[in-house]
């Protein structure tokens, strides 16, 4: 009847199968519990035993999630799940396990051969988390909603200002109040910064938002001079974030000698940053797959067409600005408290470009791509440094160690070009290919 033959749906011939609720949740439960069991047995078990257990559990969890996935014709509810296919669910379980086991691995006193930069990894991982959150929000605005903005760093600064006012001046190190306050301020100021988007597009919008960047820098400097002088704001020491005493009963929280639980050190920070980053990225992914997020994409692709579907284009654009800015401001607060101090030179135009590199390398149209992008951005210099110092042959080339930062930059730039040329949808696209390839070769091997 129709002129086109239907392409064969992938799951048509597979028999209908429904796992029970327990089967559906079990792999994730195992992935969530085992890391803590492994982590709590610090002394008495050999590292290599734990590594072996980790690998085995990883495989088991992946397999369980793979097998216990609904198959056959999916109901709408099943079709709406974030992790729908066996491969999605498998990777989700592995990621859950990985995210929870990672800090324990990094905190262990394991030393890899050839002085592989293990010790600095933890700091890098935490920075990746902060940057991934900000970059994901940036990408939601620029990549997904199509509103080119350079005001990103302005909202990091806004986060620091709110962190300074609410977190330091008012409450002496209460990051937990500063975070929602920054989200609120970011949403309001973000919507205002988005006003030019109602009239301008593309390059013109870019310039208008860049103007906003400089306005915000002015506000930041004025604020610093007024209250803190040129030394900047100290977010550490007496201003360090802490867990309130009424929460000390929580598992894993044993207060220090002075009866306080200060969030300091990479391990503790990881447990603050990781959940916040994961939850905010999940939030944005959920937005993208529901009503308002679909409207963002519609406005990006064809705004006339979108408005004839009943979408208020102006409102939708401002909403995208507000959401993105709110999350970026929160990441600004986290960065301020994590890094510990913010001064006049903490924010510059270079940072905007760094974020742009992160989202372009990560994958323009994928929110999760920001994670890959910021990992690329932060891990590469570490590996270059290691290669210069330790790697056979490379360490003997004086030229490389004479101009370290220039060569880092050159290689990084070269890699960015390579990625853009061969994989325009970035590392997220590459990851998708790899995932598909692994999934297919596993599916071919057996049921």
């Amino acid at each position, binding site marked *: 009847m*129709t*002129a086109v033959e239907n392409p064969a749906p992938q799951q048509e011939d597979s028999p209908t199968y429904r796992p029970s609720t327990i089967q559906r949740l079990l792999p994730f439960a195992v992935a969530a519990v085992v890391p803590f069991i492994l982590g709590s047995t610090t002394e008495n078990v050999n590292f290599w035993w734990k590594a072996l257990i980790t690998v085995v559990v990883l495989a088991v969890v992946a397999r369980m999630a793979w097998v216990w996935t609904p198959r056959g014709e999916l109901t*709408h509810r099943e079709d*709406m799940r974030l992790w729908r296919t066996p491969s999605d669910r498998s990777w989700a379980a592995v990621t859950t396990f990985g995210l929870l086991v990672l800090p324990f691995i990094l905190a262990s006193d394991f030393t890899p051969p050839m002085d592989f930069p293990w010790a600095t990894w933890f700091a890098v991982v935490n920075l990746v988390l902060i940057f991934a959150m900000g970059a994901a929000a940036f990408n939601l605005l620029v990549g997904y909603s199509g509103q080119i903005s350079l005001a990103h760093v302005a909202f990091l600064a806004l986060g620091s200002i709110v962190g300074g006012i609410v977190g330091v001046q008012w409450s002496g190190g209460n990051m937990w109040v500063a975070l929602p306050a920054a989200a609120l301020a970011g949403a309001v100021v973000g919507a205002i910064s988005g006003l030019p988007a109602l009239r301008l597009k593309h390059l013109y919008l870019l310039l208008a938002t860049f103007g906003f960047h400089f306005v915000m820098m002015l506000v930041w400097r004025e604020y610093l001079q007024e209250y803190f002088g040129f030394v900047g704001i100290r977010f550490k020491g007496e201003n360090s974030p802490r867990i309130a005493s009424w929460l000390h009963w929580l598992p894993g929280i044993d207060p220090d000698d002075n009866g306080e639980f200060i969030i300091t050190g990479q391990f503790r920070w990881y447990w603050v940053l990781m959940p916040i980053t994961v939850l905010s990225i999940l939030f944005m992914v959920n*937005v993208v*797959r529901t009503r308002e997020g679909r*409207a963002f994409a519609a406005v990006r692709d064809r705004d*006339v067409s979108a408005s004839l*579907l009943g*979408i208020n284009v102006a409102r939708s654009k401002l909403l995208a600005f507000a959401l993105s800015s709110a999350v970026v401001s929160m990441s600004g607060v986290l960065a301020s408290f994590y890094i510990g101090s913010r001064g006049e030179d903490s924010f510059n135009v270079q940072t905007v470009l760094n974020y742009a590199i992160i989202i372009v390398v990560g994958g323009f149209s994928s929110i999760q791509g920001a994670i890959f992008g910021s990992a690329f951005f932060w891990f590469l210099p570490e590996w270059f440094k290691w290669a210069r110092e330790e790697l056979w042959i490379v360490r003997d080339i004086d030229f490389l160690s004479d101009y370290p930062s220039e060569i880092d930059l050159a290689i990084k730039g070269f890699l960015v070009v390579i990625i853009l040329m061969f994989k325009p949808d970035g590392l997220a696209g590459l990851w998708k290919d790899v995932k598909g390839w692994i999934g297919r070769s596993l599916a071919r091997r057996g049921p």
Partner: protein
Amino acid sequence: MSDEILSFENLTVQFGGVRACDAIDGHVKRGSLFALIGPNGAGKTTLVNAISGVYKPLPGAQVQFHPAGKPTEDLLSYRPFQIARLGVARTFQNLGLFMGENVLTNLLLGRYIHEHTRLIEGGLFTRRAVKRELAARQAIERVVDLLDLGAFKREPVGDLPYGVQKRVEFGRVLAMEPELLMLDEPMAGMSVDEKQDMIRYIYAAQDELDMTVFLIEHDMSVVMSIADHVMVLDFGQKIAEGTPAEMQQDERVIAAYLGTEMAEN
């Protein structure tokens, strides 16, 4: 008048010195299939754009929409997205689809005005958001079944053949459940088979879903077989109006389509 769903009077749209539509009057009966025909550049799409709010007509024009059981609305005082929410939906001649998104997303966008999930609810994926999303998907399901789009649901629209894309766009306006459906050359560039399918779908929209259809069409033969009422435009002027049979006899219409010389012979 209660049996009218749309009436426009003295509708003039001017681009610089060109009058794309010149003082056009028209009345669309509820439940009918109103066809607007005319040669290339006659101003058909401009007229639809003016009604759906994309272009602003010159002062003095009147466009009134009479929703069933609700007070009459003056469409000229609304912006396009508000007009869409009142129940006037339209398709585009060269497709207003979002090519990078899959068919499902495109169709769900048609439910935008009926779904009321807020941004934060959607982000938290609350129970209510899930319920509404499910309701939207169930509403889509009817359209998918009607238009045989089941096999393409997860395909990016840009990868689909043209005929299917046209169907997806038609499905999207059906999902909006408008009272007045304006179709801008839904059959342009289609094969004969596809055209027949599309005619079937348009009939289904009119009869089963109780929509009034405002059809722009280039192809006279199609219009003559399905329209209840035909309006003919040429160079921005309304040159004739009436039943399809009357239009086939009308000299000015024949002249507009075939050229004056042919008509004289």
